[in-house]
């Protein structure tokens, strides 16, 4: 973890009609760290990711990536400069086999630009590359799993596939929108090394989580949101001790 700020959000606000989903949220993410975003249901975590990755337009505020302003860019352009995301509700390409799911990110201009073993060559090498990436993420190459239709995969594998789709783009930043939710303890135990490996490779991760115990194991810094406002930021131990965070999670009487 270095001291260079990679991604910086300033004063992001978003309202849906009368509902204020995000109010003036600002945060910085340093190069190579794992940054956690926590908060109760409906606190605006996913909306924040949607605003930053260009899936919805924020009403106000700016986003900077490597000192370049990317506010209001379309989603595909943001993905091309290296900011990718997974979806909370898994969105694989259901009618394609698992390894063919990765052809789509591998075909994108960003992956093509990198070429080499991950970009795939001109003559269908992408299949090989796709299976390589799947193996890296925990699909056994010689089993039937990578060749099954994505729709028939169990949840654990679909979550991994979401992550694999991001990795195929060779991203600088990955927004992981609840990659642990809906997984069993053993499946989570299998995911954590993947996250740590990505960090070692120099990828910056921003993780939105409800599974706090697992998040705090890997996260360097954590931000807590409640009703669209940032209520705490800092080390995981600091955040969990914060009275406003406790109030948000446990209610008034708990404090």
């Amino acid at each position, binding site marked *: 973890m270095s001291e260079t700020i990679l991604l910086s959000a300033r004063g992001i606000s978003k309202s849906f009609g009368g509902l204020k989903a995000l109010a003036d949220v600002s945060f910085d993410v340093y190069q190579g760290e794992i940054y956690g975003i926590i908060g109760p249901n409906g606190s605006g975590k996913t909306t924040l990711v949607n605003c930053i990755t260009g*899936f919805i337009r924020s009403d106000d505020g700016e986003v900077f990536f490597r000192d370049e302003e990317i506010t209001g860019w379309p989603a*595909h352009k943001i993905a091309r400069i290296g900011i*990718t*995301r997974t979806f909370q509700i898994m969105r694989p390409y259901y009618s*394609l086999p698992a390894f063919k799911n990765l052809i*789509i990110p*591998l*075909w994108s*201009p960003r992956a093509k630009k990198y070429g080499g073993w991950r970009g795939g060559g001109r003559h269908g090498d992408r299949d090989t590359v796709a299976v390589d990436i799947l193996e890296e993420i925990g699909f056994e190459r010689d089993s039937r799993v990578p*060749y099954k239709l994505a729709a028939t995969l169990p949840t654990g594998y679909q979550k991994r596939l979401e992550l694999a789709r991001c990795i195929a783009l060779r991203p600088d930043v990955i927004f992981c929108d609840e990659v642990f939710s809906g997984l069993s303890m053993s499946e989570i135990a299998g995911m954590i090394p993947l996250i740590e490996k990505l960090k070692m490779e120099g990828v910056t991760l921003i993780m939105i989580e409800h599974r706090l115990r697992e998040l705090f194991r890997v996260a360097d810094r954590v931000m807590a949101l409640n009703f669209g406002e940032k209520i705490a930021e800092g080390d995981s131990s600091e955040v969990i001790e914060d009275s406003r965070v406790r109030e948000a999670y446990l209610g008034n009487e708990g404090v």
Partner: protein
Amino acid sequence: MEETRKERIDRGLKVRTEGIYAVSSFEEIAYLVGPRLLLIVGVLLLPLVLELAPYWKRVVNIMCVYALLALAFDFLANYVGLVCLGGALFVGVGGYLAALFNVYLSLPFYLSIPLATVCGAALCTAIILPCLPLRGVYFAIVTLMYPILFSRIFEALNVLGGTNGISGIDSFPSEYLEEYMIIIAMLAALFGMRRLVSQDVGLVLRGVKDNDQSVRASGISLTSMKCLAVFIAALMGCFGGAYMAHLYMWAGLSLFALDFSIIPIAAVVIGGPGTLVGAVVGSFILVPLSEFLRFFGSFRIVIYCALLTGFIVFKSEGLMVYLQRKYHQFERMVKV
């Protein structure tokens, strides 16, 4: 009585996934090539066989035009997720452009048809471009509206021949050229599309149908992919239109007729959505059928509708989906 049940077993030709076959004998090669060859040779022989019935040769030509339109519809609807009722738009634009190139610029047919195909496809894509963010039935309605819009404009402003249309277009120098041109174009489009949808580009297009948000998250612009898909489909439709203009030596408002939008859909429903070959087979059934039913006068619509309803109710998966399943599987009765 002993109870039995039907057991279905896949033939062991496919390896792990679609599109990879392990072929180890001539029998297996014949098994794979057979149906494809049957279609190709059968269609190529049609004009020769129909020497006996010249009227039906025309029907074969029209059948191939509809097959092209049905292919375009099947590709857009079942592979890219755009339910496009713009068949009439493609035919109309292609036909009128071919007429303009041929009559006003006096280009020969071998230049006017390719030019009309490419320019027409570009024009259609440009027209549809603003509505590409629309999905499902909204996109369908907008694309259905365009051909009506065009024919009304031509009628009201009396441009491009108005209601009389543009006549005096060159016909083809020989009858065989006329027939084989459209047949070969149709076969090329069929096998080209089949190849395209399994290529990497095709997979991206299928991704657009399955999950457009994931495609955006992968750094691929949805608009450009949809444009590409509409352009490819419009190429097929505009070729059909340009060909028809030369075939009838006339381009008129009937090129914007709704038949070109609706019959391809019926053909795809009958043939089997998402199989591509089903689109061709469907139009090979529907178009001759509607010609044949002409003998019944106005009663033909009733028979036509009854048949369509029958297909939708009893074989809603479509003919080719059903046949392909039967072809690729063994069936046998086993004891329970």
